[in-house]
């Protein structure tokens, strides 16, 4: 065991954790809206819209995240037309490409989580709202969405942790996130175990925090109080 290496690499890895957290929070933020949007499309009665939303979630859940990042980072740059548009400002940066890929990926999983949460809401609750004369828009925003969010908390907590692990793939498109820096230190010092313990410890700590925050929220918003 090389404890000196563990101590000297800790601040470097901690610095890289900032990028990991930035990637995670940005993609979760955009992904939540995207997921909500597609979950609502899934509940639409129009068959075409419904199939479109299903297709989106099927494709993004059925292919590896690595393929999705590579298509966006290496693939889209190939289209001449895109290079001349404003979009290119965003698409030439690996940082934004990673965030776009993560957002699309987590959006697909989130839409499934929210859809099943919407479907488990008892029709009686919606009927009660209707009979009180509440407009269907307000029923949706003030009754259905809060219940669906509470329902989907445990599954969404898992998704956050999966996404946190997913951000490690940003290192494959040259970003120096926690895994990227860990790989760099491993390949220069050839001490994989020491680096794994430190980097893995940081990841585990983040998992631990996310897990407990979700648990707290679940308790706070539980139905039986």
């Amino acid at each position, binding site marked *: 065991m090389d404890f000196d290496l563990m101590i000297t690499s800790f601040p470097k890895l901690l610095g890289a954790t900032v990028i990991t957290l930035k990637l995670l929070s940005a993609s979760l933020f955009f992904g939540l809206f995207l997921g909500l949007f597609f979950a609502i499309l899934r509940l639409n009665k129009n068959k075409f819209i419904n199939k479109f939303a299903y297709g989106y979630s099927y494709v993004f859940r059925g292919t590896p995240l690595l393929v999705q990042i590579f*298509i966006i980072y290496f693939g889209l740059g190939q289209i001449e037309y895109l290079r001349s548009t404003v979009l290119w400002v965003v698409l030439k940066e690996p940082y934004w490409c990673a965030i776009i890929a993560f957002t699309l990926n987590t959006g697909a999983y989130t839409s499934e989580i929210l859809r099943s949460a919407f479907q488990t809401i008892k029709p009686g609750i919606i009927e009660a709202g209707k009979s009180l004369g509440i407009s269907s828009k307000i029923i949706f925003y003030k009754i259905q969405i809060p219940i669906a969010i509470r329902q989907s908390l445990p599954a969404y907590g898992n998704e956050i942790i999966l996404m946190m692990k997913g951000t490690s793939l940003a*290192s494959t498109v040259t970003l120096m996130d926690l895994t990227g820096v860990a790989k760099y230190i491993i390949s220069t010092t050839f001490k994989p175990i020491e680096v794994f313990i430190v980097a893995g410890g940081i990841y585990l700590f983040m998992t631990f925090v996310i897990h407990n925050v979700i648990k707290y929220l679940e308790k706070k918003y539980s139905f039986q109080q």
Partner: protein
Amino acid sequence: MELLAFGKTGWGDELFYATLMTVAVSVTAMLVGFLFALIFTPLKLSKYKILNFVGNFYTTVIRGVPELLVIYLLFFGGSGAIMYVASIFGYYEYIEINAFITGAVAIGIISGAYSTEVFRGAIQSIDKGQFEAAKVLGISRFGQFYKIILPQMLRLAIPNLSNVWQITLKDTSLISVTGLVEIMRQSYIAAGSTRDPLFFYSFAAVLYLLLTYISMKLINKLEVKYSRGY
């Protein structure tokens, strides 16, 4: 379409073999994972706290750390560890482990953690009376597990194992970083030499979708078979 021609002019045959490689690695990793689950599930269900701790440590660490980090650990540390063990037995030559084995073991360790959780959940949800009834009937311990617990457990475990299989299949794309020529690596090579990454990575996505679609169909058949009578 010329890009996908079989033979020397296109990448069709290369991608076909790469797909077979992905399937081979996934199946091997899944089996390695079952082996790990076979060891760690009893530990998690054990009465002894220390064994519980070992079981929980494995599943918590592996499920909380990115797959890529585990792969790097094995890729950079695997041959070192084997050489260390070999040196105890007096063998000091350089040992290189093949990329297939490294990849299958790395993904196997990850898939094993998920399988362990699935098996633990399935065993715990079997009614205690089933164990007691089997004991009362004087069925041997082996018979108890093999004829009574296992069939009931499989019915509960198969839907979740199908999720583990999907995760494992998609995780194999990460072994491309070690140089094993599976779908992802082959697409990377093809994209590099033809300068057409959009086409090849999209085609890789289609191949993965095809694999997940076919395996879903097959697993659904298994599910029907094991839920007979319910």
